[in-house]
């Protein structure tokens, strides 16, 4: 009887962990609108709404795909370390509401919705590189295709039982490879196909609202606690707490590193630098925060802040238009965090693996490099192919005159800000006639 009782205790749902994970899921959900503001403030006024919508639409598309087949592709039964499938997960029809996620103390449904939020934000991250110039329909299709052939399989490689990177022992606590390197490499692949914004390197392209950028960065930082600490799927052994602390510590270090670098290099502490440094730190600690101690987290954050601050200038030298530095921050930050696990793993966090600076050998560094390279190469190539196919069929870019006049009006028929107190000279269009005085019901409809 004793083993059976032990088994029953192990597989019981923990109300505490389940509640914690539901809150973490909501926190990660908030990161996608936060990202929308972070990116939205960085573009010019005329493409603000498009930038917001490129992130926001992912909440719609990926959610549906995830329920239909995404969860099955990412966390179904492994086949060959590459693919996964479980027909019970299709449409969530075979998932009982109290079924337990194998090996943990939370329901399958809770695990599925937590992972969904990661699948939503990852394609949204790519959008920052494509500012001002991509047809909304093409972008929506790209998200659907990219999630299907890149994100779902890569999530399986990295986190799925039987996934090759998972079984190899690549440490990626919350998505340094699966989320950030994946999105950063995809961004690079797409921009190499679709090209630069009109006026890149010639016209000034200043952020139109740094307060929005700061708001977005602040909300990202907040949501990231769910993203990172929640990735242990419970907190019975304190690893989730360690991750939470390291998230704060590394982000602080990265923000300071970026600010000091730009003060020395360009002469001012900028708000954009503070926001960017914080995000770089969040990215870098994402794979590493369960394996390093808080001093190691300072090192990870500081190195990421410094290297990302240097990397964002590369696009002007190399001539690719990574508009809002998805490559410079997410790809570079993800690589830094993933590789530094091989140096700073303390052996006292999520596993007993020690990095080079903590008395370990280079074997973990080798595994980390394998994970980094495989995800980078796969995502870069497949994303470029997807963009190429979409470009040759429906076209990826809006016409040049629409891009110059502003993609908001061309693609969304809206303007982000009405600066005119007098109403900007707008009048009702002929297709929406003013309602007659005798028909109040209809006039309500017009106003709505």
């Amino acid at each position, binding site marked *: 009887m004793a083993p059976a009782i032990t088994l029953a205790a192990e597989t019981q749902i923990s109300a505490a962990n389940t509640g914690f994970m539901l809150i973490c899921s909501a926190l990660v959900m908030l990161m996608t609108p936060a990202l929308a503001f972070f990116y939205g403030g960085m573009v010019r006024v005329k493409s603000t709404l498009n930038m917001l919508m490129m992130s926001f639409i992912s909440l719609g598309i990926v959610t549906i795909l995830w329920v239909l087949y995404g969860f099955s592709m990412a966390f179904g039964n492994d086949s060959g370390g590459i693919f996964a499938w479980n027909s019970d997960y299709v449409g969530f029809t075979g998932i009982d509401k109290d079924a337990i996620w194998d090996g943990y103390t939370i329901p399958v449904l809770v695990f599925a919705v937590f992972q969904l939020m990661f699948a939503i934000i990852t394609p949204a991250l790519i959008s920052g590189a494509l500012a001002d110039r991509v047809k909304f329909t093409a972008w929506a299709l790209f998200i659907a295709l990219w999630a299907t052939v890149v994100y779902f399989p890569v999530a399986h490689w990295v986190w799925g039982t039987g996934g090759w990177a998972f079984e190899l022992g690549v440490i990626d606590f919350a998505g340094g490879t699966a989320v950030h390197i994946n999105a950063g490499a995809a961004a690079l692949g797409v921009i190499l196909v679709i090209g630069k914004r009109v006026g890149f390197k010639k016209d*000034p392209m*200043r*952020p139109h609202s740094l307060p929005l950028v700061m708001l977005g960065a602040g909300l990202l930082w907040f949501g990231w606690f769910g993203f990172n600490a929640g990735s242990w799927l419970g907190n019975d052994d304190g690893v989730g707490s360690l991750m939470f602390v390291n998230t704060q510590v590394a982000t602080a270090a990265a923000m300071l590193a970026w600010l000091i670098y*730009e003060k020395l*290099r*360009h*002469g*001012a502490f*900028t708000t*954009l*630098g503070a926001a*960017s440094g914080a995000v770089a730190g969040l990215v870098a600690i994402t794979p590493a925060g369960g394996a390093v101690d808080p001093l190691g987290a300072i090192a990870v954050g500081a190195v990421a802040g410094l290297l990302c*601050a240097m990397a*964002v*200038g590369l696009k*002007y030298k190399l001539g690719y238009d990574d508009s809002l*530095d998805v490559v*410079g921050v997410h790809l570079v930050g993800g690589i830094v965090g993933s590789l530094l696990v091989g140096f700073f793993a303390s052996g006292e966090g999520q596993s007993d693996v020690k990095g080079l600076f903590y008395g370990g050998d280079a074997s973990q560094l080798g595994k980390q490099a394998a994970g980094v390279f495989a995800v980078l190469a796969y995502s870069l190539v497949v994303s470029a192919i997807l963009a190429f196919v979409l470009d040759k069929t429906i076209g990826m870019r809006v016409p040049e005159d629409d891009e110059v006049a502003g993609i908001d009006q061309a693609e969304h028929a809206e303007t982000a800000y009405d600066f005119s107190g007098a109403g900007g000279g707008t009048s009702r269009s002929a297709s929406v006639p003013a309602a007659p005085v005798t028909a109040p019901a209809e006039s309500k409809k017009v106003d709505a």
Partner: protein
Amino acid sequence: MKLITAVVKPHRLDEIKEALQAFGVHGLTVTEASGYGRQRGHTEVYRGAEYTVDLVPKIRIEVLAEDDDAEQLIEVIVKAARTGKIGDGKVWSLPVDTAVRVRTGERGPDAL
């Protein structure tokens, strides 16, 4: 009549307004403007990308005055607007054919 136009530093607006009120001017028009003179612009840096911002924020003040008052009024504005540093702006005047007060239809100096 004369139309006096001043394009000056935004933070001098309150001083100019007070000086004009003390002089007896009852109305003026203020708009936000941008431009440059010898001051030129300044440099801004975003993630290491340097931008030279040529156009500097200014305010543009317009006042209608009777011919006899115009010279003195210009002096009042210039005195109130001056900081002595580069970028203080310009003040000029133009002859005006007519002016009408919309509410009453009064014309000429009566409309001021």
